[in-house]
Structure formats: C-alpha cells, structure tokens
C-alpha cells in the first residue's frame, strides 16, 4: 500500500511555555488539495513552517511519502513554498528567481531554461521574465511566486495565505487559477488561510483549527453542513452565526426546539436528537433562515435595523432581546424599504450545540 503523501503523527509545538499546537495528526493523500483554516494564532502557519523545516517539532513526527522528515534540513526536503508576502529575491530578475531553486538542485541549464519557459507560459508571465520584482504588480508578483514553486516540480506545495495581499478582484482570479493549476499538475498541496471562502472553494478536504487544536477535518461541504461544534459553525458563517438559547420539547410525539425567534420542528422523529427537556444552543446561518415580509397576525415581527445590499443578496440586521439576528435573503424577495420581517420556521436549517462545551448535538431542516 502506498503511504499517504503527507502524514502528521502526534505533532506538537511549544514556544517556551506557550503551547502552539497539540497532538496534531492528519493524513493527506497524494494529489490532494488540503486547507488548514483558522483564525490568526490557531497554529496553522506553525504547521506549515514545521512541514517546510523552518520550525522544529516539540513532539511527534512528519512523514513525507512515508519518510520521516523532521530531522531533514529544509534545503533537502523536496518541498516548495509560496509565502504570504511572496519573498521574491529583489535583486534577481523573474527568470533568475525561478532559476535559483533549479540551479541549487543541480538541474542542467538547458532543462532549467525549458522548464522556466514552460511554467512562465502556463502562468502567462513570459513577458515579465526580464523584470525585477519591484517592477511588478501584486498579482504579477503572486504569479511569479507560484511559478517559482511550480517550476521546481516538488512532491509537495506549501502555501501560506498566498492571496491575502491581493485586492478582491485579483484575489478571486488567482484563486481560480491556483485551483485549476493544482488540478492540472496533481501535486499535493497544503494551503493555509483564515478566509473561509478560500477554504471552501479550494479544498478537497480541510481542517479547522482553534488554539492549536483540530476542531474538525473533512470535505468543505460536510464541514459546512455539519459543523462539529459552535466554533466551527461560527467560523464558517458570513457575516456571522445567529445563536439563541433553546429548549427541546415534545409535542404530540414530535420533537421541537423552542427559541426566542421561533419554534423549529423535526420533520421525522428526530433521530439522535437530544432528549426532551434538554436546554441547548441553537445556531442558524443567515442564509439558512427563511424570511417572510407579509405581516401575519400571531407571528413575531423583527424590526429591520440595517440593510446591506450585497448585489444578488440582501443582509437584514435586527435584534431579538439582546441577541443579534442577521438574515441573508435573495434581493428580489425583499421589498424596496423593508421595515420588519418574520421568520418562517419551515425550511430553516438548524444546528444544535451543547450548552456547556459547544459540541454539535444535531443538524436538521425544520418542518
């Protein structure tokens, strides 16, 4: 059986008395695009730097294609890295930036030249080969940084928030290009970001980290649909997760959860649902809330405090008691100047979390 492309076995990292990463274990398959997602200070960049060899391990081992690498210096690991601020050599032309790693790895001149030109063609930067980094725009520098990694043809790419210095328009273009290139080249990639949109769009699988501990590992859609705990749900919600206290009740055989903003019912007898009487935290993503604007008697209305138009969608901000309520609704379903809205419980996706530890207790679409 072939070993995984990259395997972390109980990897830990301390800086003095500060624990940065704890018992991190993960297997990444050959050719997989794996994203580490988390807020700053969660340990994701440390994982990347340890994989590159730029940081030592305090515990555990990292295996690259089955070989332990924690004692191999970075210059002898077959790994290329794209840095957040590109780290292009300022005194070298684009061509020499790309040639540097090849020359150090003893690639013959003719072959190196062919590879540089091919890679430059792939990234549409042929016309920039004679320029120095300071003569390039941010997006161009980013492409050169990618080119410098690609031309090496390594067994692993590491990418440390490579898009964070780009403006929004360029960022989405380069994001698409990175995904496309990675598909085409089939090189295993470990990508670090704090941007959940990047993680969702790029990853084959991803891991969500918080304070040095893995919260959840899986394909993006699975993590989105079934967040393992309240932290993951909050981190993957835009602009923010609505959270309310709730109580599980039984009503003529059906389970339901009662909250300040409405009552949500299980369609089928709630499989694996918390027992009646349990008190829980209820999370609803803005886009998972169904909104109605006709004022029906007996349905609680929420005053619209702020409207944000995103283009095809509209964010409506309101309050229920002390808790903020945000919804995300298709723009054509919203009247010109909405003053208040109601929530249609049926069709809302509901996430239940333990009131103490925040672990997920269940996810369902309300009937």
């Amino acid at each position, binding site marked *: 059986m072939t070993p995984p492309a990259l395997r972390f076995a109980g990897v830990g990292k301390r800086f003095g008395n500060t624990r940065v990463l704890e018992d991190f274990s993960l297997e990444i398959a050959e050719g997989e695009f794996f994203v580490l997602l988390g807020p700053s200070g969660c340990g994701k960049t440390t994982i990347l730097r340890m994989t*590159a*060899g*730029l940081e030592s391990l305090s515990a555990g081992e990292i295996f690259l294609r089955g070989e332990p690498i924690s004692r191999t*210096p*970075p*210059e*002898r*690991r077959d*790994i*290329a*890295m794209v*840095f*957040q*601020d590109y*780290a*292009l*050599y*300022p*005194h070298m032309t684009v061509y020499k930036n790309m040639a*540097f*790693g090849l020359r*150090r*790895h003893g690639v013959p001149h003719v072959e190196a030249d062919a590879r540089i030109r091919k890679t430059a063609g792939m990234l549409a930067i042929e016309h920039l080969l004679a320029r120095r980094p300071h003569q390039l725009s941010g997006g161009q520098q980013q492409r050169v940084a990618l080119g*410098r990694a690609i031309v*090496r043809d390594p067994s692993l790419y590491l990418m440390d928030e490579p898009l964070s210095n780009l403006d929004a328009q360029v960022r989405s273009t380069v994001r698409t290009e990175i995904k496309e290139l990675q598909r085409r080249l089939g090189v295993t990639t470990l990508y670090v970001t704090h941007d959940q949109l990047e993680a969702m769009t790029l990853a084959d699988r991803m891991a969500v980290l918080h304070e040095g501990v893995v919260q959840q590992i899986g394909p993006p859609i699975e993590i989105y649909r079934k967040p393992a705990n309240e932290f993951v749900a909050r981190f993957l919600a835009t602009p923010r997760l609505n959270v309310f206290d709730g109580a599980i009740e039984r009503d003529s055989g059906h389970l339901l959860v009662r909250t300040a903003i409405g009552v949500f019912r299980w369609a089928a007898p709630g499989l694996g649902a918390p027992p009646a009487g349990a008190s829980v935290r209820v999370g609803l993503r803005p886009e998972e809330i169904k909104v109605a604007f006709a004022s029906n008697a007996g349905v609680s209305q929420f005053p619209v405090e702020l409207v944000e138009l995103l283009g095809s969608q509209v964010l409506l901000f309101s309050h229920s008691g002390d808790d903020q309520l945000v919804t995300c609704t298709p723009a054509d379903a919203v009247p010109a100047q909405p003053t208040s809205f109601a929530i249609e419980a049926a069709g809302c996706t509901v996430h239940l979390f333990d009131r103490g530890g925040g672990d997920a207790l269940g996810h369902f679409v309300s009937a």
Partner: protein
Amino acid sequence: MTALGRGRPYLYLAPTLVVLGAFTYLPIARLVEMSLRAPGLGTSLGAWTGLGTYATLFHNPLFWRALGQTCTYVFISVPLTMALALGLALLLNQPLRGLGVFRTLYYTPVVMPTVAVAALALWLFNSNGGIVNYFLARLGVSPVPWLVSTTWVLPTLILVSIWKNLGYYMLIYLAALQALPLPLFDAARLDGAGPIARFFSITLPLLRPTTFFLSVVALIASFQVFDFVNLMTQGGPSNASNVLVYFAYQQGFSYLQLGMAAAVSLVMFALVLTLLGFVSWALNR
C-alpha cells in the same frame, strides 16, 4: 511667477553655499593656486612657477615611497576591515544570549580617543617588554620588532587602525543585516540553498548599498591616515611608515615648502576621486 519668486530657491540655498564656498571651495582654489606658485610664510603667494612644483614632486623618490606605502595601507586595511566587520556582524546577528555585551565591547575602541589608543598600542607593541611580545614569548615565539622594523611597522599600524575602527563598520553592517527580510532566507532554504549559498546569493547582494557606503567611507578615511603615523612612528623607521598626508605635513610644516604640500594634497585628492569613481562603477554595475 515674480522675479523674487523664481529666485527664492537660491535664496534658501545661499547660506549653505556661502559657508561651503568660504570654507571648502575657496580653500581648494587657493590650494591649486599655491601649488602653481612659490608661497612663502605670511600672506605673499610668491612668483608663479607653473607646474615646476609638480615636476619637483614627481622627481622626489620619497613621494613615490609615501604613495606606495599609502596604497599598501589602503588596499590591505580597507578590504580587511570590511571583511572582518561583515564576519563579526554575521556572528553578532545570531539570536544568542549576551550578544549585547559583545556588541558594546567591539564598539568601545571606536569611541576611545585616538591618542589614548596610540599610547595603548605603543605600550602593547613595544619590542622590549611590550605585552604582546611577552605573550608571544610564552608561546615560544621570538620577539617581533613591531614598530622598529621597516617590514613590521606598516602591518602594525594597519592592525591598530583596524582594531580602532572595526566596531563602526561592524555596527553599520549589523544594522543592515537586521533589516534584511527573513522570508527571503526561508525561501532560499526551501530552494535548496545551504548557508554558504544563502550568504553569496542573498545576503551579500542585498548588502550591496551598505558595502558601497562603507567602502567609500573606508577609502577616504584610510587614504587620509595620519594620526597613528604621527603619534606612533613619525613616518619611521627610515620612512617605512611615511604616508602621503604625513609627507605633505612634513613638506609644509617641517620644511615650510607650502607649495609642495599643496601639490601633494591635490595629487591625493585626484587619486581618491578616481578610486571612488571606480568603486561606484564596480558596485553599481
């Protein structure tokens, strides 16, 4: 724009230009004039002699000897100082404990008065009973005639001036090293560059502006070497440590040949300018 408005920038520049003119450019012009005449003491500039003074100068074997010894001094002390300063800066750029103490220690000689350093060096390098020879003797090395041998005197002066000035060059290099972006070195490591390749491919090229600045400063300073010569050897023994500035000083103030002293100063001025031009060309190629 009014005439006053157009003239305004020059008005602002005037104070500086006046001071520079009075104390730099005018004296240089006067120096040129002096070298072309036969000035005596007092205010008289004497009769015009044309290039006669220069002809006499170029026929003086001591001038050529002083020039040769100055060049030896410059071309050994400048590269050696720069290399040692960079080496030290690289060592002191490590994240180790107690480095602040070392940085201070290496910088101390820079702030010491030259006279004190010269006195200290005279005592250290005394051939009879100097402490350096004492320690060499304990290691089984026979006494070295540091300041009294024509072979050893120039190397000894170079040694003393390096010891005195190293800290300054080290400090500037250290500041430059600390300003280099660290991710570049991470990138170079992942590109397969070991410590030596990283030094020659990344560190050294990125330090080029600093190297340029320091070589200019070092070239000018070492061409003007005078104080240690005057304080420690007076050009001796038998002119083995006579250098251009000391030669000019002797001509002007010992033999009262002011025209000759002016001519020597101007030749040196031209030499330094040429050298700086070369350094500038070499480092900005």
